[in-house]
């Protein structure tokens, strides 16, 4: 079957879709696109949970406050103290530090 693409048809469809979305947003007060993106994001998050846990571990280390007059030993000591009795997290931190050292060597 011969199918022809219509650019004006596509543009009209997009315009109608946009108008419908804006109208729905006005009437219901719901942010359709943002909501949809949130749902897609949550879906990907469920699939990529291991990656997210890894990113959260890196983020945790990045957010440890470092004072202006402290050196890396102070920071390490602080991390060590804060991760007492948290064996799995401690192991993850050690792996991250080792990966960082390996990356620096390479």
């Amino acid at each position: 079957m011969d199918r022809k693409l219509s650019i004006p048809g596509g543009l009209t469809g997009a315009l109608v879709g946009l108008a419908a979305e804006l109208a729905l947003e006005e009437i219901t007060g719901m942010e359709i696109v943002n909501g949809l993106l949130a749902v897609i994001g949550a879906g990907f998050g469920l699939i990529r949970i291991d990656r997210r846990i890894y990113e959260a571990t890196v983020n945790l280390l990045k957010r440890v406050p470092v004072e202006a007059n402290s050196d890396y030993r102070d920071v390490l000591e602080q991390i060590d103290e804060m991760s007492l009795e948290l064996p799995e997290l401690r192991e993850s931190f050690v792996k991250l530090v080792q990966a960082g050292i390996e990356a620096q060597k390479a």
Partner: protein
Amino acid sequence: MVGLNALSKLFRKTIGPRIEALGLLPQRYYLHRALDALEKDDIDEAVRMVTLAGNDKKDARWRLVCQQVIFRCRVLASQHEKQLDRFETEMEIFGKPIELSDTYLRLQKAEERARDILRSYEMTLFNQLNGRKSDPVTAE
């Protein structure tokens, strides 16, 4: 597409939170929500989600996320502790001006309260991590 999204939004605004609170959704969902909350430093929500995620099984993923929240609680509590120390040092060095004493006192109390709430969250999760029962914590 719009209809599907509107439906999912409606679900999340109406019966979604109730179903979520029942702990019937997959563990990954709660872990995902806990990580979101942790990123925003919404510790109350993170603790709630970790608790719901650990209802059925406490596997390696759950343990790690739980420990991440505990770690963050400790970091934040130590910041409040440092702030308290700073107040005390300032008052010792500069004295306590009468016009500022109320403000100092209020700030001190707020810092103490924040630290105590974080410590109780830490304790709640720590007990769960070690298989002990604990009372749920609620932030006022």
